[in-house]
């Protein structure tokens, strides 16, 4: 077919453009990673060189391990992210099922009400959220973060999941009903397994913003024992501004978990975006 679109010169130019931009995208990460393994002198003398026998050191990582409670921060981030995803997926799927499956008065209105939160950022309500968390004693607890992120994640989750649930075959559900299954069993046993790909998409969309958020950890849970990894590295780096080894190592350690998550889930993420889940 199209010979007009297969021009070798065009393809060279395309690769040149893409390689250039890939380099721009990866350069800062690369510079941080290689320099975190170099001695202070080498960091300044030749920032772009790879560490070698003379310049290799782990001193920065040792400082980070000694001074910062990175394992605790990591654990906090992990708990908050996993718990939030659990609630967003469970509550979101339940609400999406109700909206997609049943015709009841106010269905459309309820859908619109839940969709409001897609466009209005939850941060606007921060002052009142903090007030509420203080009066319920949840401030400086991981629950405060889990609740806020759950509320933040639900609107898009309901929206995406209900689109998918409308596609689940009517015959299947009716067969279940004839067999005498309750509505709950139909939802948990028949429908949920079928929308698993959509659930994975919702999970991946929610995961990265929660993991990376600085605003709510800073405001709702700044205590030492509830710091998330993002807030923890922010505070740590702020304290060690002049210790370049420590700062570069802390940055590298903060990059590591997201990179691992990304490598595991990038297919899912890209498939989710490109399948038009967010149209």
């Amino acid at each position: 077919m199209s010979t007009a679109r297969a021009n070798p010169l065009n393809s060279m130019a395309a690769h040149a453009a893409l390689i250039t931009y890939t380099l721009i995208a990866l350069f800062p990460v690369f510079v941080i990673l290689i320099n975190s393994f170099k001695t202070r002198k080498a960091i300044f003398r030749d920032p772009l060189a790879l560490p070698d026998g003379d310049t290799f050191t782990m001193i920065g990582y040792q400082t980070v391990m000694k001074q910062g409670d990175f394992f605790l921060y990591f654990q906090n981030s992990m708990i908050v992210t996993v718990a939030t995803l659990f609630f967003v997926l469970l509550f979101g799927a339940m609400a999406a099922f109700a909206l997609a499956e049943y015709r009841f008065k106010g269905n459309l209105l309820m859908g619109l009400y839940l969709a409001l939160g897609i466009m209005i950022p939850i941060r606007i309500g921060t002052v009142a959220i903090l007030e509420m968390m203080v009066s319920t004693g949840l401030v400086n607890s991981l629950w405060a973060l889990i609740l806020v992120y759950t509320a933040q994640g639900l609107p898009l989750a309901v929206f995406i999941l209900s689109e998918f649930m409308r596609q689940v075959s009517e015959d299947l559900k009716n067969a279940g009903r004839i067999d005498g299954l309750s509505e709950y069993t139909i939802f948990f046993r028949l429908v949920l397994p079928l929308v698993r790909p959509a659930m994975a998409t919702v999970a991946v969309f929610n995961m990265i913003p929660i993991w990376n958020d600085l605003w709510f950890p800073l405001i709702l849970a700044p205590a030492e024992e509830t710091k998330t990894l993002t807030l923890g590295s922010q505070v740590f780096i702020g304290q060690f501004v002049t210790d370049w080894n420590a700062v570069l190592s802390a940055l590298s350690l903060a990059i590591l978990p997201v990179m691992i998550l990304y490598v595991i889930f990038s297919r899912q993420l890209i498939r989710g975006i490109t399948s038009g889940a967010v149209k």
Partner: protein
Amino acid sequence: MNTSKIKWHIVVFLAPAVLVYTAIMIFPLFNTLRLALYSETDQVTHFVGMENFRTLFGDPLWSNQFWNALGNNMRFFVIHMIVQNPIGIALAAILSHPRLRFAAFYRTAIFIPTILSFVIVGFAWKLILSPIWGIAPDMLASIGLKSLYAPWLGKEEYALTTLALISVWQFIGIPMMLIYAALLSIPEEVLEAGEVDGITGFSAFWKIKLPLILPSIGIISILTFVGNFNAFDLIYAAQGALAGPNFSTDILGTFMFRTFFGFQLQLGDPHMGSAIASGMFGIILVGVCIYLFGIQTRLRRYQF
């Protein structure tokens, strides 16, 4: 079937989501708007009506800061619109080329900055642009442009633009992916029909693809708008709550944070903070309404 009875399973399915969403998101949102109408003196809260807004817009001490933050925020947004979205569209257009090799690799690599936290991005760029470390000046020197170097983040006239470009660097993956998805959904027959009429290459992009992806460009624009007018993290991570130098990188998010929490000698004021949050809410609402009623309804969607 008895339709008059309440169907309890519907209530059970809806309740958790609606409760959490209402209690943690909708209620605080309106409570914040309400708090903006109060003030506190000697630990007694009392109703003051529009007084806080009068202070915010009328008292030069406040209004100068507010307009500065709003102006900076507009510039921040405009830079995103004219740099991030065109580059994102261009990258997507190249990537969507059929039979392009390594497309998956490029896509994955270019998306990496988007997954990094603002803390990492802010500090990494701060170090790279720093005059102490010298990566940026050395690299410019190697291509003979050393004279162009300035400590961009430390100069009032460049800092905001630099931060906006860093943010563009970080988020370019999102427009790229959304446009890429839109381009892939254009059926081959449409493009082939264009080829038969002699429309290929660039003109195919301008005349066939671009009109078809306009709705996606609309979505990207509104996402960018909402994201920018609620931004905070990058500025805070790179320049601190004071959004230096001399407030030149102050945007609404950092202004609200400072007002609400206080900084240095100024005490935090939740009621003024709420007033600023209400202002942000209004701005975002206007933006979203313009998009929903002014733009989205006019863009023609094509169903294939």
